[in-house]
């Protein structure tokens, strides 16, 4: 489990993970739709959940996921890091 410090907030870890997969991008706004923009596909979605779990120190029940919680960095932050 990772601890969220002042200079490495959990949501920043999620943003860094997404940007790390897309070297053509240097920034990612909080309201960009991650799925519609094809930044996260079906395989990467599971990795995204794993990254959020690691950053937030929680466990996500995959069977009861609400996809809207994962739509943007803003919704992820609200659902898992608020």
């Amino acid at each position, binding site marked *: 489990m990772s601890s969220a410090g002042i200079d490495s907030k959990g949501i920043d870890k999620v943003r860094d993970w997404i940007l790390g997969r897309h070297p053509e991008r240097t920034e990612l706004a909080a309201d960009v739709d991650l799925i519609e923009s094809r930044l996260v596909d*079906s395989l990467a979605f599971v990795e995204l959940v794993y990254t959020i779990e690691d950053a937030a120190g929680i466990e996500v029940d995959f*069977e009861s996921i609400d996809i809207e919680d994962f739509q943007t960095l803003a919704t992820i932050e609200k659902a898992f890091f608020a």
Partner: protein
Amino acid sequence: MTSSVVTSSVATQPVVTQPRIGVDLVPLSRVRELLDPGIGGIGPVLARFLSAEELTGSLTPDGAPDQAGIAGRLAAKEAVFKLLGAVGRPVPWQGIEVLRGPGGRPGVRLSGHAAELARTAGLGPIDVSISHDGGFAIAVAAAATTTSLDHRL
């Protein structure tokens, strides 16, 4: 392909049988990402995609991860998911198992949420075909779906 219309002995409305197909492509490079960092040869993320039985069947005879086989399995799962018509939902990876059937042909076993979605979609038995070449695996899934004529679009 033509659709066939049959009349159920139980239902009062005639039903139409239509084919439905799904396809997906997975590069083996994605599987290598999922294997890293490997624990006992299988990465913790990959275990989210594959059931225990699938994991057992995803090893080569010397115990190493069968990257092509895993890529084919993942492609087949996603191809089956496309049959379910479940827009806006994550793929229920664990509920769509692709297992080795008689004669080595892949077979599909649905459970949990995936099975519910298949029932809702009126899907009959699902068949899948998988192929690998050039660093990619591709899979096609097909099934017949029956829908009531008064619910057709």
